């Protein structure tokens, strides 16, 4: 019967191995490519180390107890003692988990605040519109717009301003950092940064119905010079984004191709979704931006 404990150890072991050997390229979350993802990665590792202690203690104790105290033909007349309480032990197994929780809580809080700190370098701003089921990226400074892919300069923070037309999506690029919801009627902000040029997978991570599985995009990080060059070229060569075209794009439906435009949509289209909230915002003081 002690097999069970071993089976359990066996299942947890590959996980440990994966982490230790660094064979993690396919495991996107464990392969951070930017400072945001890295700080989250560090927290994940730290939390895993802490819970690994717990797992080991419980599994070892469990296995030993099962081997040592199982009923065997030769101990059938053993009558277990009647102890019921042992305050010393109970305090130990209350305090130690508590300390582990503290050890996890401190970096958690630090990183939670740290991620919201203003980056030292002025970020470039990209507006993201999650429409069902495609991603639209607007570069207000460059005056261009792309769909289902986004170019960013490497080594530089990017502030994504997150909006949605109808449903609540979640904007997630695992290798660059954790996700955030994009909500209709409310703008969110997420700063990400890529260390070096490369392509990273992005996806929607909050269920929005039929075409949800197809709502993916690519992040293409480039050297800043290349990024500028790309932006200039796009501005010069891509077609204009007309109002009709934009309306067509945001209509519900799967759209997996990449589109590129040399002009941007008018924010008021998205704002019109928000108009009611805006009006009411005036009277309730909630809106403080």
């Amino acid at each position, binding site marked *: 019967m002690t097999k069970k404990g071993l089976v359990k150890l066996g299942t947890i072991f590959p996980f440990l191995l994966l982490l230790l050997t660094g064979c993690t390229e396919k495991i996107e979350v464990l392969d951070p490519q930017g400072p945001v993802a890295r700080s989250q990665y560090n927290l994940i590792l730290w939390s895993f180390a802490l819970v690994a202690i*717990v*797992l080991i203690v419980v*599994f070892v104790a469990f296995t030993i107890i099962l081997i040592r105290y199982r009923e065997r033909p030769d101990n*059938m007349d053993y009558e277990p003692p009647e102890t019921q309480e042992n305050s010393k032990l109970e305090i130990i197994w209350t305090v130690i988990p508590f300390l582990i929780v503290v050890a996890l809580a401190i970096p958690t809080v630090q990183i*939670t605040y740290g991620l919201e700190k203003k980056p030292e370098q002025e970020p470039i701003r990209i507006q993201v519109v999650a429409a069902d089921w495609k991603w639209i990226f607007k570069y207000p400074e460059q005056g261009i717009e792309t769909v289902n892919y986004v170019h960013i300069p490497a080594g530089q923070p990017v502030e994504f301003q997150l909006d949605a037309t109808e*449903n609540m999506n979640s904007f997630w690029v695992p290798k660059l950092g954790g996700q955030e919801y994009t909500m209709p009627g409310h703008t969110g902000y997420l700063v990400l940064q890529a260390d070096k040029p490369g392509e990273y997978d992005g996806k929607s991570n909050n269920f929005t119905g039929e075409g949800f599985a197809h709502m993916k995009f690519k992040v293409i990080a480039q050297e800043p010079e290349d990024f500028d060059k790309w932006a200039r070229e796009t501005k010069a060569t891509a077609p204009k984004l007309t109002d009709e075209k934009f309306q067509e794009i945001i209509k519900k439906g799967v759209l997996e191709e990449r589109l590129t435009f040399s002009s941007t949509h008018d924010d008021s289209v998205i704002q019109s979704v928000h108009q009611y909230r805006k009006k009411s915002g005036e009277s309730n003081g909630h809106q403080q931006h």
Partner: protein
Amino acid sequence: MRLDEFFVTGDPMIYAADVSIVLTIIAIVAVLTYFKKWKWLWTEWLTTVDHKKIGIMYILAALLMMFRGGVDGLLMRIQLAAPDMKFLESEHYNQIFTTHGTLMIIFMAMPFIFGMINIAMPLQIGARDVAYPWLNALSFWLFFAGAMLFNISFVIGGSPDAGWTSYTPLASIEHSPGVGQNYYLWGLQLSGIGSLASGINFMVTILRMRAPGMTLMKMPMFTWSVFITSIIIVYAFPILTVALALLTFDRMFGTHFFTVDGGGMPMMWLNLFWMWGHPEVYIVVLPAFGIFSEVVSTFSRRRLFGHHAMVMSMAAIAVLSFIVWVHHFFTMGAGPAVNSFFSISTMLIAVPTGVKIFNWLATMYKGRIRFTVPMLWTLAFIPNFVIGGVTGVMLAAAPADYQYHNSYFLVGHFHYVLIAGVVFGMIAGLYYWWPKFFGFKLNERQGKHGFWWFMIGFNLTFFPQYILGLMGMPRRIYMYTNADWSLLNMTSTIGAVMQGIGFLIICYNIYWSVRYAPRTNEADPWDGGRTLEWAIPSPVPYYNFSRVPEIKELDPVWYAKKRGEKLIDGPLEKIHMPSNSGVPFILGQIFFVFGFGFVFGWFWMVIPAFIAILLCMAWRSFDYDDGYYVNVEEIKEIEGV
């Protein structure tokens, strides 16, 4: 509404379901008629207010729902076995995971715990029934009406497909225009009201109907877990009631609570849903903890270690469970203050849960551990649940959760806690208390086979999902194209099939044992029972206790046996019992009609049903039935004295 809109059409699976439903109904009617069992069904089951029978009906319903939810699970696993599968379309897949999640939690886990509570808790405290037997029956029939309503969505009108969390705006009338979402709302609403009533019922039962001498601290651990669970139910379910009602108003009457236009706030749905939803997961797991406590001490032949600490830790879990809900939407962007607060409160739950784990280990330490089937499930619970629990703590670290949220890592977490906690617990309880109700044990050898298939399959299914999550696989996708994910997904599917086999073995085990297992009718079939239910005959007579014993200590049966005393003794007296009533059953049916009318917006159906409900309640209010007495002769005959 046209007929072909009313009945779901166009899919072979649906037609198969239609056919099987019709066939099942015909078969049931035929069998009942052939064996002339209609009257028996009515007098013995449909009108019963006996907690034991109600408990058995709950468990039966739960097993059925587990079968349907499990089939849903298997279908999903087949679709996800390899990249680009064409087995299910998106629309279908979405309906299936929605019904899977809802069924498993609301219509499998909840009735299962209510079943266990009903059969065991009154016996453990020496009561003849629950505080309000009539209401107890009504709770069951409300649950049943809700479950039926939710299940028929598959063939009539269409299933909900916005996830068991039913987030707005996706679940709004604009984005989910069909009736599926209405089924979700009314199915949950009806059974939720039943659950609330049960919660009050159990609380009063425990507070007022304990055997003399049984102080709160001398109460068995399962009963304690029921008490604390009931508290959570009473204070969490009203939140669900309101949330569902408001979404119903939004969908049917054009209000603007969760809509984007009109100034509504979709985020408030998430907020209310999880204010109920998080306590809900502890509602389903705490009774399982209670069962584990009983089983561990019975089969280690040792008193439960740290009774007091076990109670305190459950109380702590209950309070904490109400202040952690935001961990389900850390990624909403509520800022560091909110996220930090809820991260810490969530992590703190690990401490009382840990106390429980270590106390179970300490109970086994120096014990004499017998590997019976209930004990096997309990033993498997400990390491598996700890895996699920510690990954929960990993999720609780907000910035890390930005990476895990809505990925398969999360799916892994909650199946580890839900299955290792709730399902293992309920199966353990089923095996443990079975002989008490039927006078024979379920076959141990078959039970062990079922256990190993299920346990290994379970690990194979859900462990790879943690890694899939870290690889970036989102939940609720009906297909993927990434070939890197295929190996682990295939493993997971194979595991799911193994679980299915395990489940079938367990069902066969029940069938076989009902037919062939030797009847022993022992009061204490496990030879080590400690709490009051093991002092009375098996199967339990309908009045439970011929005489109510005086309690002086914890585990009275165990110590009485050791000292060679007779616990249940003294002169017999006539026993007062509540009368059966058909009203709860009928009310349940009317509620079904009421809900069904609402689903389709047919007010010509809703209004008469509502009036009928009021009339039933008035009838009940004017009904001065006092129950009846069981006379001493009859008791003597049943007890064989």
